[in-house]
């Protein structure tokens, strides 16, 4: 199988879907001539022209809303919001319009659109440009929210998202764009709403998504050398959430840790922990632990930023603590 970057997988998928269905079009700031702030749309303006790849002024509320209206009319817009931080400006359109129009009007008009947007810190972009606000979207009925961690899932889930008749928030991550992985050729549709076992294991379950899932798998591989068998559940879809897969894994391992890039309080991990509480309590040997970002506006200075964000070391430490607390090491 070809090994390509996450960026390339996205670019390939957009090209394939633009080719397949003429109702698909891209819309966003600097996605055409500039080729996207993170170059995900490189080459597409040249190939498909300005009607299919539409540059917009800086007006997130306007162009996201425009995508909604276009979707109501049967087009299938794929909007790029340069980073999730700027999606706040489009929030009313996303939550009060995209997420509501199908249900509120009694199911008359679906809103088949995708909002692609990268989140994540670690690039020293400072407090307003480094956020992980995915839990906000995950909370909202009417939206679907996916957060692929691998190039293959980036392809499969983006394809599914574009073909889905509901608004899908497609969460990318700045630090994943250059990561590589095997991506099958040809059409790949990954079901929205299903988690994946990114790595099998028997001693402890780590639940993660997006960048955190990559860290979790790496950590799991390392710990394997020490004889610790970590299972990694990659959520992939935050809404709907595949509670079944999470709980099944934890029922098997009896121990769980969540790794997440967002702030701890009221973050994604809270829902995972609550879910495990509800679906695997009787099987737990110890309370679920969360490894998440420190609750501060993320500082610019590198050592401060590093301290605030969760990493493999933090995860490893907590996994060990979990195993110790449950007398895994004798």
């Amino acid at each position, binding site marked *: 199988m070809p090994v390509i970057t996450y960026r390339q997988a996205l670019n390939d998928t957009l090209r394939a879907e633009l080719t397949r269905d003429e109702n698909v079009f891209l819309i966003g700031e600097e996605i055409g001539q500039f080729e996207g702030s993170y170059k995900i749309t490189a080459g597409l303006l040249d190939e498909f022209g300005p*009607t299919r790849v539409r540059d*917009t*002024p800086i*007006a997130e*509320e*306007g*162009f*996201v*809303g*425009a*995508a*909604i*209206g*276009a*979707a*109501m*009319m*049967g*087009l299938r*817009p794929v909007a790029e919001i340069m980073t999730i931080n700027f999606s706040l400006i489009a929030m*009313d*359109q996303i939550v*009060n*319009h995209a997420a509501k*129009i*199908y*249900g*509120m*009007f*009694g*199911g*008359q*008009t*679906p*809103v*088949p659109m995708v909002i692609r947007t990268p989140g994540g810190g670690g690039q020293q972009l400072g407090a307003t440009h480094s956020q992980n606000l995915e839990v906000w979207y995950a909370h909202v*009925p*009417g939206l*679907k929210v996916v957060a692929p961690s691998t190039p293959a899932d980036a392809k499969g889930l983006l394809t599914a998202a574009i073909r*889905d*008749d*509901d608004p899908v928030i497609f969460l990318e991550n700045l630090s994943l764009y250059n990561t590589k992985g095997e991506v099958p050729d040809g059409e790949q549709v990954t*079901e*929205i*709403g*299903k988690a994946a076992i990114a790595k099998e294991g028997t001693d402890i379950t780590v639940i993660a998504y997006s960048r955190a899932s990559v860290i979790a798998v790496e950590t799991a591989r390392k710990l394997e050398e020490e004889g610790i068998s970590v299972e990694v559940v990659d959520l992939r*879809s935050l809404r*709907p*959430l*595949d*509670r*079944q897969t999470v*709980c099944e894994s934890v*029922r098997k391992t009896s121990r769980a840790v969540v790794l997440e890039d967002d702030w701890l309080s009221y973050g994604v991990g809270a829902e995972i922990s609550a*879910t495990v509480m*509800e*679906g*695997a*309590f*009787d099987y737990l040997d110890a309370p679920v632990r969360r490894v998440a970002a420190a609750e501060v506006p993320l500082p610019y200075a590198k050592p401060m930023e590093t301290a605030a964000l969760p990493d493999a070391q933090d995860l490893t430490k907590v996994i060990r603590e979990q195993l110790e607390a449950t007398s895994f090491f004798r």
Partner: protein
Amino acid sequence: MADTTDTTADGGAAAGASWDNEQSEVLLDYYRQMVLIRTFEQTASEMYKRAKIGGYCHLNSGEEATVVGLMAALERRDYLFTNYRDHGYALCRGMEPGAVMAELFGKSTGVARGLGGSMHMFDTEVRMLGGYGVVGGQLPVATGAALALTYRGEAGTEAEALMCQLGDGTTNIGAFHESLNLAAIWDLPIVYVIVNNRLGMGTSVEAASGEPELYKRGASYRMEGDRVDGNDVVAVREAAAAAMHRARTERKPFLLEAMSYRLKGHSVVDPERYRSSESSEEAKESDPLPAMRDWLLAQGVLDEDKADQIESDADQQVDDAVSFADSSPDPDPADLFDYSYATDVANAPHTLPGEPVVEMP
């Protein structure tokens, strides 16, 4: 561009001068629609007090000439987006009074199955793609729908075009600015219509807008605009039709401002303590219904009998609407999750309050 800055003094009656060239039947039809809206909403207001209707309920009372004129300018193939003050538009656009009333009653026979309510009239059949409740929210969406029109057909006299209604207060919000700019740079077939009823909820246009001649705000986008007497149904229709024609044939957006009045409170529960007695008086004098009635009578187009007939026909229609709504079934809570998603996917949460979302084996 005509600058009809002051349309208050002469009101609807004088405006009627422009009606001389119209066919009587057309004018009578407009009057009939205006009466229907008024009657419908008087009843709705009554039904609200009787708790048959809940939530918010905003009336077009006082704006009927504007509503009817605007809707007369649309072709069946055109699309419409409005704000939450949307009953009149729904009726004129061709939704059944019964289905509109049923929506207000929250019945399953309502235009939006009772899930939307007063603020959210919607019917793909008549191409009214929604009344929206967040101020300004309809503008980006409508703009995008107009964008979609440019993907599916060429410009021309037979082309589809789109109208997006908004209130005067709505011109101060960011979505207004972003939307009009997009429509301008993308050459979209959309006519934005500001129904200037002089008030937000209780805030005057002058207090809220740095440029209170609102149609002039199109200048920021080199978008043409115009102001029209909203009490003159024909003038409204003409101005709107011209703008829609331009949108169809040239794909140029337009900003039309109709100077209207809000006879009642912001919504049916508003006690209007902020309204001076003069301004209420002024509004009442500007009621387009008696003005049009008088004019039609004076012209001999209408006689008292016919006028009564029109009113009693409207009463009948509205009574029927109420009966229909009253006898319609409530939506069934068992169907609560039917419209969560258009594409079903695994693990979508379908649990009622207190039900477990995951089973412990």
